[in-house]
């Protein structure tokens, strides 16, 4: 396919880039009201007036420096891939900070279109922006948008097409810094003219003055003399301002941004504190904030447990009422393997997993997650992390895979490793199915909650250990706090569906197949062979029925499968007749800790490498069986 135009979306975190991307491409890039969702660039195609347009969604960044992984991804893309147009998405409620980034894009000389997003929210806050004036000052088209409603998004593309066809001279940057800086940028540009560099000239000169380590290394490799010249010029600037050159340039950019804002923005202070502010005061309160947070968390678990149990029962009754109670190999295989596998999976999918994704989507879209990061920052320090780690850890309740990837919002390698390790210990929706669907439904909700509490204690202890033995300290949190917003029902359902779809497509057939396989093995007595081989661990050490052995192996593929297959392997849907309460608790406990599923292991390898992924996996296997055996002995004494 011929691509007519490549358009990259760039801007600060949490300004609506992914929303615009989804509106344009119809794809389901995950969006939500917290900074740092998009960690990798996403690509989509749009057909606009017979033109094939490639849209690239870049991670949100505040600066084109190298502080974080996302910044490197975004800047490498813009500087080296040369998209035809960069659409700079700008948050109208925080124009000054956003323009700081716009100015850097202008330094790069990229053909720019400004999408002035969130104009509706800005209006509510009493902010009005003169777009025409802004357009003139920046020498780039400005389009006001409300991305969540799709307003203005197609005008962006019209402008982008126009902008791409304009002469390069039309993109001329007319933003200048103080004369003492400009003359030195010019001097350095002259030094650089003879040098072959892949980056834009003015931008390279500025980056060299700032002492950007990557650019300095790249240029310095072949042209150490340029670096010497840059250092002298940077020294002169810092001599004048009595500050390091990099902060001088940042201050200068902010001074320009402030000047522009002063010209284009009018602000009318609201008389009453907004609802959002009042909600902030409650949800971030030193006491009420914590009470609210724990109430929300416990209510979610309680609701999930009750709803899931209720729903599973309905489905089960529905199907079992049609049970023909046939005997013989093929009918048994069909019913106990196929049909039971199908409905048990459906119960799990629609009773537990989908509702959970809806709740998670609500929390994400409302902007509550960053509040948790704020509240939990201090407690996180005891396990060597800072508050931002709470966001991937909470996402891990949905699925560990995106959580591991989401840990990229942690700034240092050490913090990332700790956060990733702990994420894999968070009971994901699949494990929640086993905990709530087995222990919660058949032993009691209080025991299910106790399992969670135990898991949190385990996470805390492992965090402490890692913190102790890994060198270094956490850098501390620096995070933008987004305002609350009314979550959009369409966004939440779409998002939940996007997360849920892979489960239906890959997990459902796999589990049914596994169920049929186990039934076949049970009918042919192969299952007992496998089970007997594993019985030293399952029966002797963990005190579980022999048939559970195979489930631990299958559970590596999909953890939610272990509940469904448990029924198949036990040969009955009434688990109570096959397992004692203690056995159920021990089984759920081991499933909860024992090994990340295969998809999580793959994510671990990708994020941390083979060695660390192996370390996490084997530690957790050992830990699970060790704790499981202890729990069996302890619980037998108690219950």
């Amino acid at each position, binding site marked *: 396919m011929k691509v007519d135009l490549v358009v990259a979306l760039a801007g600060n975190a949490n300004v609506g880039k992914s929303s615009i991307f989804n509106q344009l491409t119809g794809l389901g890039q995950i969006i939500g009201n917290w900074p740092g969702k998009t960690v990798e660039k996403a690509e989509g195609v749009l057909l606009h007036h017979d033109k094939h347009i490639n849209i690239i969604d870049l991670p949100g960044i505040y600066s084109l420096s190298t502080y974080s992984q996302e910044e490197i991804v975004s800047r490498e893309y813009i500087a080296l891939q040369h998209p035809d147009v960069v659409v700079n998405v700008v948050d109208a409620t925080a124009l000054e900070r956003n323009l700081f980034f716009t100015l850097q894009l202008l330094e790069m000389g990229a053909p720019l279109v400004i999408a002035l997003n969130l104009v509706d929210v800005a209006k509510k806050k009493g902010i009005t922006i003169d777009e025409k004036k802004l357009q003139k000052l920046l020498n780039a088209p400005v389009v006001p948008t409300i991305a969540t409603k799709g307003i203005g998004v197609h005008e962006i593309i019209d402008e982008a097409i126009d902008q791409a066809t304009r002469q390069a001279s039309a993109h001329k940057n007319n933003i200048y810094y103080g004369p003492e800086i400009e003359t030195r940028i010019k001097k350095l540009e002259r030094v650089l003219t003879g040098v072959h560099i892949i980056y834009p000239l003015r931008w390279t000169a500025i980056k060299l003055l700032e002492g950007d380590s990557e650019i300095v290394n790249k240029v310095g490799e072949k042209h150490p003399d340029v670096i010497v010249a840059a250092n002298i010029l940077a020294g002169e600037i810092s001599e004048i301002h009595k500050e390091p050159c990099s902060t001088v340039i940042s201050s200068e950019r*902010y001074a320009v941004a402030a000047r522009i804002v002063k010209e284009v923005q009018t602000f009318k202070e609201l008389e009453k504190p907004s609802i959002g502010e009042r909600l902030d005061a409650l949800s971030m309160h030193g006491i009420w904030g914590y009470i609210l947070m724990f109430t929300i968390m416990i209510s979610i678990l309680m609701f999930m447990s009750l709803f899931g149990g209720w729903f599973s029962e309905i489905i089960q009754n529905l199907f079992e009422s049609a049970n023909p109670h046939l005997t013989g190999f093929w009918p048994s295989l069909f019913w106990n393997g196929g049909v039971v596998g199908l409905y048990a999976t459906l119960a799990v999918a629609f009773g537990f997993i989908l509702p959970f994704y809806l709740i998670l989507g609500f929390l994400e879209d409302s902007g509550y997650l960053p509040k948790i990061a704020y509240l939990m920052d201090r407690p996180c320090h005891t396990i060597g992390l800072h508050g931002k780690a709470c966001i991937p850890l909470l996402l891990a309740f949905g699925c560990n895979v995106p959580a591991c990837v989401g840990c990229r919002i942690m700034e240092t390698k050490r913090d990332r490793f700790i956060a990733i390790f702990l994420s894999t210990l968070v009971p994901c929706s699949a494990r929640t199915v086993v905990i709530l669907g087995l222990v919660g439904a058949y032993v009691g909700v209080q025991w299910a909650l106790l399992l969670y509490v135990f898991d949190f204690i385990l996470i805390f202890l492992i965090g402490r250990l890692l913190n102790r033995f890994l060198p270094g300290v956490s850098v501390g949190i620096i995070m933008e706090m987004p305002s609350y917003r009314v979550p959009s029902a369409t966004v939440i359902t779409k998002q939940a569906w996007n997360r849920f779809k892979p489960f239906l497509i890959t997990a459902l057939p796999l589990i049914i197949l596994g169920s049929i396989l186990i039934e076949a093995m049970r009918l042919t007595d192969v299952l007992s062979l496998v089970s007997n081989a594993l019985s030293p661990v399952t029966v002797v050490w963990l005190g579980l029925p022999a048939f559970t052995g195979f489930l631990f192996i299958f559970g590596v593929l999909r953890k939610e499968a272990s509940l469904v297959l448990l029924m198949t392997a036990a040969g009955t849907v009434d688990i109570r007749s096959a397992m004692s309460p203690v056995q159920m608790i021990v089984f759920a406990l081991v499933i909860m800790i024992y090994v990340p599923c295969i998809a999580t292991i793959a994510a671990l390898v990708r994020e941390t490498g083979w060695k660390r992924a192996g370390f996490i996996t084997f530690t957790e296997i050992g830990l699970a069986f060790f704790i499981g055996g202890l729990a069996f002995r302890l619980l037998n004494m108690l219950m």
Partner: protein
Amino acid sequence: MPQEHIEEYLEAIYDIAGKDGTAKTSEIAERLKNAPASVTEAFQRMKQKGLVRYESHKGVTLTAKGYKAAIKMKRKHRLLEVFLDKMLHLPRENIHEQACKMEHVLTDETEIALCKTLKGPTECPHGSPIPPCNLEVKNCQECLSEQSLSLEKRDKDIIAITSLKTGDKAKIVFVRGGGGVMQRLCDLGLTNGTEVSLVRTAPIHGPIEIRVRGCKLVIGRGIAEKIFVHKT
């Protein structure tokens, strides 16, 4: 009353004073192992010098002048602790007492030289923050690279941003430390001279939320303690 005693009192009040800035006579007496009567007498003397506000039965609070003097002593004390620990490798348990004695004879010039030699430490060996100096500098690099001690004294009172009260407005004067975090703060708009206001503080040494350039930022305590501001 010798200067040394006054300084000990100032430090004790600074350490003990609670959220409202008041310290009780009995607490001070216990801390300094003095009789309550002599403590009250000392408070009266210090009141005459304009260092404290004192009314019997109400406890004692530091005045701006007293606060400044107390901070200065704290700074000297903790710098000395770092010196005794890092350079002289004395046992940790002895350094506090030694620093207590040395701090009173340390001149300002020596204090600055000590800070430079130790490369501008931010915390004492026990983990308490070292208050900033009162030189007209914008950050530590500038001071560390300066050869002579030609820097002028600051005439403004500066405090860590974490010492602001909710709703207080202030201007950034100085960010301690360097490297990535400082550049990050700059990128987010916390450049020198920027107006900020404190929105809220999380309990038990948690992070703070500030408003800067129209947006809200959450900053961890450790980083925030290195941002110094001048109240407006």
